[in-house]
């Protein structure tokens, strides 16, 4: 595992919402490193800034101050168009609510990132089919999201997140909408299919049952990183 290669580096990241007396500082100077080949979990109580931090790291929100580098690219100074293109090429997303397009079948859903990167429909669907088969949905390729269980939908989301071979995988509460057994299966699948030496996986979660899957755990509180722990050393304190 090439732990020395930095995938994400943030320094002094500050993000404030609102103005004047109603302003809320969600991030108060976050310094953080994530490396290629690791699955990093970001934990902390509600309102500690986990989601804001995740949004800043993946480039869906701009920080007010500080620097954010992802695979050597400074996201703070990228134009909106270049930032969108960067996300499309380098970042895969797994959302808590899956965010699958309900009127598209699962192959069409899973092929979206490739289509956004300019692949032909045929190539994109072939690759999506391969990945969906890999995550155990090979017999339900023409199914629509509403016809699948929560665990199956999250597997489609995993296939969609990986289909364009992103170097950074962002998972926002991937097991929050699932029961314990489905959550465990999803994390096993994620660990098996997503973790690669050239890829970094960042998972924001409240779910202590999945902590054993992490290589490192970053604990956040009040908009700052309170500590970084190795797997097995961390015990829930929130």
């Amino acid at each position: 595992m090439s732990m020395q290669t930095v995938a994400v580096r943030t320094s002094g990241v500050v993000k404030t919402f609102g103005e004047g007396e109603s302003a809320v500082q969600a991030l108060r100077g976050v310094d953080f490193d994530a490396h290629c080949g690791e699955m990093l979990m970001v934990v902390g109580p509600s309102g500690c800034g986990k989601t804001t931090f995740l949004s800043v790291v993946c480039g869906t929100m701009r920080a007010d101050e500080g620097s954010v580098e992802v695979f050597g690219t400074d996201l703070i100074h990228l134009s909106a168009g270049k930032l969108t293109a960067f996300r499309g090429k380098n970042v895969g997303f797994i959302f808590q609510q899956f965010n699958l397009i309900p009127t598209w079948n699962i192959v069409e859903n899973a092929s979206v990132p490739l289509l956004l990167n300019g692949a032909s429909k045929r190539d994109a669907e072939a690759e999506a089919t391969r990945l969906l088969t890999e995550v155990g949905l090979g017999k339900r390729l023409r199914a629509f999201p509403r016809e699948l269980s929560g665990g199956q939908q999250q597997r489609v989301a995993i296939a969609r997140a990986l289909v364009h071979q992103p170097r950074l995988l962002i998972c926002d509460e991937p097991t929050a909408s699932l029961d314990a057994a489905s959550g465990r299966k999803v994390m096993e699948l994620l660990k098996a299919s997503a973790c690669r030496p050239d890829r970094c996986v960042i998972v924001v979660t409240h779910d202590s049952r999945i902590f054993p899957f992490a290589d490192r755990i970053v604990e956040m509180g009040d908009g700052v990183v309170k500590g970084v722990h190795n797997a097995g050393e961390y015990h829930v304190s929130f």
Partner: protein
Amino acid sequence: MLYGDVAKFIMLIGGLTVCSLLMTQQLGVFCGLMQWTTATIRNVDAPIWVCDAKVEQVSEIVAMRDIEVNRVRSIEGVEWAVPLYWGIIQARLPNGAFQQIQLTGLDSATLIGRPPRMTSGNVEDLRLPNAVVVDQLMLKKYASKTVSPQRPEGVTLKVGDVFEINDKEARVVGICYAEQSFMGQPYIYTTYERAMEYVPQQRKMLSFVLAKPRDDIAAAEVVARIKKIPSVTAFTKEDFQEQTMNWYIKYTGIPISFGSVVVLGIIVGIAISGQTFYLFVHENLRHLAALKAMGASNALLAEMVFLQAFSVGITGYGLGTGLTSIMGRRFMALGEPPFYLPWQVLAFAGAVIVFICLFASGIGLLKVFRAEPAIVFR
């Protein structure tokens, strides 16, 4: 996305169909009415119309002296000029019922201004004593006035039947087809001289002088020369039609009446589709933001939203204009209400539908453009 939301899809198509139907159907009837106002000009079909200087449209008659025919004939460039009588008068039908008619008196030598198409009889027979040619509307009116339990379809007026105009005999020698006019009365054709016998005598009786320019001179040039005759004016056929239609548009409530329904159709279209499309985008904002997070540009999302808007727009437009065509065919088969659907009406309705689609999707897109992709994490 939109196709999967059956309720909104149907609502949008329904709104745009009603909008398109209201616009095209109402404008079709309006254009039909405007066509009716100029039916006499097309039925008579003369290249140049000369009338009293105060006349503003074809149904407004200010009689002239017969000498004006000779004055027009004397103008350089006029190949021929003939008198035409046109007026509304009452006829007494064979069954004793009364019916208002549009009496058209043609030059007996040339029969210029003759009916466009004879369906029975011979137009030359107009030169026979007391002869008239009646149009298909006269048959319809007469049949409607002779309905009885024994003959529910009424009695058909035919060649050889006799009725009275101003207590004088009128013998039907032919049946013709003539375009129905705005005035709503049937056309009865006879000779100019006999028309003078039918109508009450006045000092001036001539309604129009019909003329034709020589082939080597433009009609507009001859019209300009005729206009130099004191107290008369002249129009080319096309100008007279335009002048007549403009008069009806300016001095009657017809455009306001039809225009308000068209505006209502546009408002219905904008209100229903705008609201429905906004709701559709609002409900799918999370999915659109997810696509944005995954690398979809604003331009691509706009393309997606516009494509969906225009596909429902085209469907609604097609259904609306299709329904209008079906209604129009039915109207034309029945003879009324008037109906005429020129391509300009279809183009106008298409442009309005495009505008509504742009407006409706534009409102939704503003929300998409403003949305930060980070909302997918909330």
